[in-house]
């Protein structure tokens, strides 16, 4: 059980999180949706215990916590295999065993054998993201915090990993707190969808639903329906940012462009 109650966060004078309550139990997958810069990453970092809230309580009853950070956070001097095995090494597992496990997971995530020895600088963006995912799942965690974990993956991998994730939740009873910008992904995965307002973040919607992994069409319909709800649309697709309102702003941009062109 992870409980965040009355959570507030400030950086100096700026209020980032303005009072959030959130509770997740085992076997539950909660997706967080919210506009860019609203405080989702900050909330996850507080939940993980690597950031202190300005106010509020964090109670974490889970023992094995893993996190897929928004950036991969791989050791630049270690290869993919050793990076994926980091959590296992931290848990005290022997070298041969942890490497075997890390390899199996990486291969499962679409790595070829030749890529296991590559260092982060030799991996593509999506490959780095997969190493970070492998590192988290190698631990068979009971709480997984995931910050836009599939953002750099192709459709095939993304669907595959979504299924894998649901299996972990349903099979192993893991709890997952999942941040994404992809509303369809949210609908496919979530037992519950929590929508945040723009900064300072507070909860504008909390929707309990059945995950729609099975049907792509149903997921599309559900996500469209979600975005039609006024409070959610206001947070995620505010009218000010609709294509119709662009004309004036575009002028400003092309003006800027002209000025710079004149100088060249």
């Amino acid at each position, binding site marked *: 059980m992870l409980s965040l109650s009355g959570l507030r966060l400030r950086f100096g004078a700026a209020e980032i999180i303005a009072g959030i309550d959130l509770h997740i139990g085992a076997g539950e997958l909660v997706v967080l949706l919210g506009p860019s810069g609203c405080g989702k990453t900050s909330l996850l970092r507080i939940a993980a215990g690597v950031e202190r809230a300005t106010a509020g309580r964090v109670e974490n009853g889970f023992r094995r916590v893993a996190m897929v950070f928004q950036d991969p*956070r791989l*050791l*630049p*001097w270690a290869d993919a295999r050793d990076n994926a095995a*980091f959590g296992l090494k931290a848990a005290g597992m022997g070298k041969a065993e942890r490497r075997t496990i890390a390899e199996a997971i990486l291969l499962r995530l679409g790595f070829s054998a030749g890529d296991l020895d590559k260092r*982060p600088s030799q991996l*593509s963006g999506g490959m*780095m993201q997969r190493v970070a995912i492998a590192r988290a799942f190698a631990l068979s965690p009971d709480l997984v915090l995931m910050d836009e974990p599939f*953002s*750099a993956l192709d459709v095939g991998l993304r669907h595959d990993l979504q299924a894998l994730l649901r299996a972990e939740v349903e099979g192993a009873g893991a709890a997952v707190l999942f941040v994404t910008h992809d509303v369809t992904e949210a609908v496919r995965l979530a037992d519950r969808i929590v929508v945040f307002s723009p900064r300072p973040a507070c909860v504008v919607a909390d929707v309990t639903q059945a995950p729609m992994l099975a049907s792509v069409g149903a997921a599309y319909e559900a996500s469209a329906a979600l975005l039609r709800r006024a409070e959610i649309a206001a947070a995620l697709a505010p009218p000010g940012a609709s294509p119709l309102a662009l004309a004036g702003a575009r002028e400003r941009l092309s003006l800027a462009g002209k000025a710079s062109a004149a100088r060249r």
Partner: protein
Amino acid sequence: MAVPARPLSPALLSAIWGMAGLLALAGAWQWGAMVFGPFVLPSLAETGEAVVRLVDSGKAGPALLATLVHALAGCAAGGAVGFLLGVAGGLAMPVGAMSYPVFTALLGTPPIAWVVLALLWFGPGGGAATFTVAITAAPILFIATLQGMRSRDRGLAEMAQLYRAPAFMRFTDLVLPALADFLIPALATALAFSFKVAVMAEVLSGADGVGGGIATARSHFDLPETMAWIVLAIAVLILADALLLAPLRRRRAGRGAPVPLSAEA
């Protein structure tokens, strides 16, 4: 656009360029010798003869060994202290803030201040030289390590904290590799200084080693022999640098094109 065949490994190529650099230095020396005459700077030939003489007579070996021992032992002892305090200082602000001016002061203090103390504590048999080297190497490593700790990637530290990596693993897997960039130049600097300081301390404290040889050669007014000792010491230094530090540098270079610690998400 085929990449042209590269017959030489980077390490070999860089060694060849290094030789070229040393040759240029020798050229400058020879030029100086010709311009200023043998009592300011002996010629390469004279010095070379003196080197051969020293090596043949069997004096060079033990002296170089003694100096090597003083330099390496002092460098290792002092470097270890500086490194550990630097790491501690990076973890706990007061340790770093307290040690910083102390190490600056130690680095800036002419050895005159403690030569007698060192001689008392460690005796004239090279112990004083080792101590003087240690007290020079410690601040170099400390200052560099402290900066390295301050520049380290908080993102990775956070990751390690989340995965509850034990302190020792954090040290070996995160801190040490990240510090490599700072330790490599600091170690190179400290090693070179160690040789110089060891030789000078030997001269002052009447120990054996290259410094003893230099003191004798100087009181013989034998400039070629003085320079021969120095050349021998430098040769050992460059060898030590190549043997001890080049592997570190190669390993660091082996990480491939340096990239930001957590790039391309």
